[in-house]
């Protein structure tokens, strides 16, 4: 029963993928879109059933299919683990997934390769589910790389543009760097505990005496590198903004809601490993904080609407890692969920805007869309309030939890986090004001076609907006349903409930004020005194540095990419030729000797006989000498 359920859960998206790949074109656009959506919807329903079951029984379901890879001391089978965490993830992956599929039907309708788009989306959902429900690290790795592949395919979906292809390639390779870390981590864990299976691993570690902690920390660090790759943390974050080359639904699904949270998922999954590696936890916290700040600062000045959202995603992920670093996994998970709601909503909203403006993404050419597309405006406004941490929206609770945890552990990181969230509030409303208020700054031609998007686009927006509003209820401060739900996962007592004392309230107040402050600045800057960002050339000073993302890409290019390429040239042109010259050289030498030898063969009998006699005398005298 459970096996079948799990199989249905996994295989329906795969089926959708296959159908769309092989028959998509003949089915026609709407049909293939419908198939894709239904496939994911079914998985969603299944996950609801599973959720129901889990909550009732309260213990996870282990499904083992068959042996996969045998290695002398560890035996890896292809199996699934459906417990609180994975089912929770399933819910919003498939849920938001199906909404975005729905949205895409309309959004991608003008694209001739729509069936491929849905095929890839389904494939992504398939791999994402595998990632989430895998019962051991290697199955997770299938999904891990699989979603990477899908993101590669979808970023480069418009494959005629080589810049998009570059972005896709970049995403894949940077993920691969992380994956190597993940692999190494697996190797270490595998050789330490001779298992990669979560359950056995947990018992092994919790039960183990005299663990080799340094080695374990190394493993944890490697795993975290993997997480950095997938969840776009410093230093491997640069691919995510470029990934915005993909169609907007992709950005919403993969690069905001689901795939990028895989890192957080993995760390939460292996909490029992990370709990033992405190140094690594600190590293995680620091990296998270820095990432959130850096990304936020960059986000301040971006003018491409999707880039802004991208950087805000990076910074939000940073906040989540900040929480993870403090071992407050449930908090991170909480923020993952709320973030999934409002960020998906924001992306879809921006998509709807872009759709309305026929592909215009630069906010400098927008404005005044409030009247033209009200639903989009309102939904995005709600989400922006949520992300800015305005009270009683979902984001308020989750972000506040994180900041609270940070405050309890380390004041500096708390400050960093708060600054980042203030900035978030600022650039989010900067985005809102530039996009929806004032009068339209685009071309006349665009102005004529301004219109609210169709229902297929707006319905998901509305649903997500609702979720973004009330999502916070799952973990209210004081009595958190989520914490109880997740409690079985964690070895130590689930994150200490912040019983609401004065400190908490003051901190909340500070956070709220911060958020409002950010909004206020944005309001003054972009609404009262109507100045909007200049065109690229006359951006100057600090904002130029920010606008160019601290030149990180350039640095990476100069430090890693170029050297390797020139090394490759060097090898190709010198070492290779040199080596083969060496081999040919041997032949040449012998040939040269032969050429000299031909001289000796002069044809003169006298010489021949002379050598003859010489040889004879040599031999005879040798014999005499030997005696």
């Amino acid at each position, binding site marked *: 029963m459970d096996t079948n359920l799990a199989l249905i859960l996994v295989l329906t998206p795969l089926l959708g993928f296959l159908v769309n790949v092989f028959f998509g074109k003949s089915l026609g656009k709407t049909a293939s879109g419908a198939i894709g959506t239904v496939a994911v919807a079914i998985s969603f329903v299944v996950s609801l059933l599973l959720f129901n079951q889990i909550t009732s029984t309260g213990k996870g379901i282990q499904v083992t299919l068959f*042996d996969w890879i045998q290695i002398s001391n560890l035996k890896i089978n292809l199996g699934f683990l459906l417990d609180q965490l994975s089912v929770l993830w399933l819910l919003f992956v498939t849920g938001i997934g199906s909404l975005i599929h729905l949205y895409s039907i309309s959004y991608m309708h003008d694209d001739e390769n729509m069936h491929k788009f849905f095929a890839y989306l389904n494939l992504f959902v398939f791999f994402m589910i595998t990632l989430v429900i895998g019962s051991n690290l290697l199955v997770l790795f299938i999904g891990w790389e699989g979603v990477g592949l899908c993101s590669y395919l979808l970023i480069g979906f418009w494959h005629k543009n080589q810049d998009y292809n570059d972005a896709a390639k970049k995403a894949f390779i940077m993920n691969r760097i992380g994956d190597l870390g993940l692999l190494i981590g697996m190797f270490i864990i595998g050789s330490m505990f001779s298992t990669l299976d979560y359950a056995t691993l947990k018992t092994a570690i919790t039960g183990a005496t005299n663990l080799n902690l340094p080695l374990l920390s190394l493993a944890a660090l490697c795993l975290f590198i993997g997480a950095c790759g997938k969840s776009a943390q410093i230093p491997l974050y640069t691919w995510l903004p470029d990934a915005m080359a993909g169609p907007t639904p992709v950005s919403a699904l993969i690069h905001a809601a689901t795939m990028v949270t895989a890192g957080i998922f993995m760390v939460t999954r292996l909490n029992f490993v990370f709990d033992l590696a405190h140094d690594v936890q600190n590293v995680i916290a620091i990296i998270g904080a820095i990432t959130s700040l850096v990304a936020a600062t960059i986000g301040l000045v971006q003018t491409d609407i999707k880039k802004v959202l991208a950087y805000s995603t990076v910074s939000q992920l940073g906040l989540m890692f900040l929480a993870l670093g403090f071992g407050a996994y449930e908090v991170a998970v909480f923020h993952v969920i709320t973030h999934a709601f409002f960020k998906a909503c924001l992306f879809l909203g921006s998509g709807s805007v872009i759709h309305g403006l026929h592909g215009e993404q630069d906010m400098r050419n927008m404005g005044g869309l409030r009247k033209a597309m009200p639903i989009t405006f309102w939904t995005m406004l709600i989400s922006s309030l949520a992300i800015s941490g305005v009270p009683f929206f979902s984001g308020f609770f989750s972000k506040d939890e994180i900041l609270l945890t940070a405050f309890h552990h380390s004041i500096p990181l708390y400050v960093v986090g708060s600054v980042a969230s203030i900035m978030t509030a600022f650039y989010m409303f900067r985005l809102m004001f530039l996009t929806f208020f004032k009068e339209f700054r685009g071309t006349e031609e665009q102005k004529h076609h301004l219109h609210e998007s169709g229902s297929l686009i707006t319905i998901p927006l509305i649903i997500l907006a609702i979720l973004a509003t009330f999502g916070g209820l799952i973990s209210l401060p004081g009595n958190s349903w989520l914490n109880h739900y997740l409690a079985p996962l964690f070895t130590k007592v689930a994150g200490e409930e912040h019983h609401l004392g004065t400190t908490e309230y003051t901190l909340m107040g500070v956070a709220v004020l911060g958020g409002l402050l950010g909004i206020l600045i944005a309001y003054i800057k972009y609404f009262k005194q109507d100045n909007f960002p200049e065109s690229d050339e006359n951006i100057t000073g600090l904002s130029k540095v920010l606008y160019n993302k601290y030149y990180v890409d350039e640095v990476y290019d100069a430090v890693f990419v170029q050297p390797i390429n020139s090394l490759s040239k060097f090898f190709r042109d010198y070492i290779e030729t040199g080596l083969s010259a060496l081999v040919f050289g041997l032949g040449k030498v012998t040939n040269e000797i032969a050429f000299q030898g031909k001289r000796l063969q002069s044809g003169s009998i006298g010489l021949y006989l002379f050598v003859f006699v010489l040889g004879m005398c040599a031999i005879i005298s040798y014999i005499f000498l030997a005696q």
Partner: protein
Amino acid sequence: MNVSTILIILLIGAFATYFSGDKLASKVALLFSLAALGCSIVLLNNYNAGENISVINSWITQPKISFALNADGLGLAMVLLTAALTPIIIFSSFGNEYKNAKAFYGLILFMAFAMTGTFLASDGLLYYIFWELALVPIYFIALIWGNGDAEERRKAVVKFFIYTLAGSLFMLTAFIYLYTKAGSFLIEDLYKLNLSAFEQFWIFLAFFLAYAIKIPIIPFHTWQANVYQKAPTVGTMLLSGIMLKMGLYSVLRWQLPLAPTAAKEYMYIFIALGIAGVIYGSIVALRQKDLKKLLAYSSLAHVGLIAAASYTLTLDGLRGAVLQMIAHGFVVVGLFFAAEVIFRRYETRNIAEMGGIRAQSPKFTSMFLILVLASVALPSTFNFVGEFTVLYSLSQINIWFAILGGTTIILGAYYMLRMFQHVMLGETNSKAFADVTLNEGISFAVIIAVLLFFGFYPKPITDLITPSLETILQVINKN
């Protein structure tokens, strides 16, 4: 029915093909190669059923050389690889017109014959004879049906032949020396020897020279890229798909068990060499202008990893090596076939002249992409199983080996995707590109099916090879 049947089928096939005339040659060749495949599958069943399918007859009395073919799991696995790839390779060539086709296909079958013999022979000299025999047909295939400037080709091919022969002859000397010690060329008698460390060192070196050139391990690889580029694609497939595995197989079967002490002592050097090959090959591959050359260097990188794994002398290492051999065999054949498919339409192997193919040929693109992903060892492809095992075994020796060897994950992705981007993607190409024909599609489909199936369920192969690898390890660790 015993393993010699396969050899007989292939040999008869070679002659039958030659005498069937240019018209029929390809069909006949395909027929016989399929027959060989069927035969080897039947044999596999018999073997699993516990039948004895080995042969041993005395051949030459003085010195004592016997016609001994022994099929254990390892041998059978490699035979199956050969038997499975040969029909694919032959079938993949159906799109081309070869002048004097009867000789061409005859030589292919003959080469398959020789390579199968190499995998089966359990008498040192018989093995050597097959090993050398395999060299002759590929020499002529590359020389006569190859492409590119004739003079260049001549140089490349002769270099290849002399270079490989040079290596092998030292191996022969080593064998003779072993014979003078053991009084027989039979592998089990040779296994029984226990030589002094000094002797072992030289034996090991002699074998290493032969195999390092054949595999090739850097810095003995200089023949490879040129020959791969100059040879007709069929020849390249034979070389990279099967012949190169001969070297790796021989390392497991002959080199390590015959000189275990030396192997243990110098293990690190050779692992390091292999891994250096991985990095070097990947980096050189980055900036190749010629598609076939790029693939050649990529396979240099992959076999470097396999070789490194073989020298770890652990069960995982050997098992991973064998798995990766088979996986790489299929992938590389597929990739070279993709290059051929492009060549058929664009008459070029220069990457710069390609691009924008995807829009015109979705089917081909998907298949090519799958092969590319397989070659970068994406999980759920067979190559991942191999590569994971290999890297794991390396990590057990020293974590740094795994890290350095693991760079193949990154660099491999880099050059393969870069290649894919410039070959397939971009603004639609001005020159029309017809999507794959049915024949081409079948060849691709078979390869991809194999890769995916074993990617999820490698158990059959693992179970097949593990026992024989364990026995080999016992021989290695006997003292």
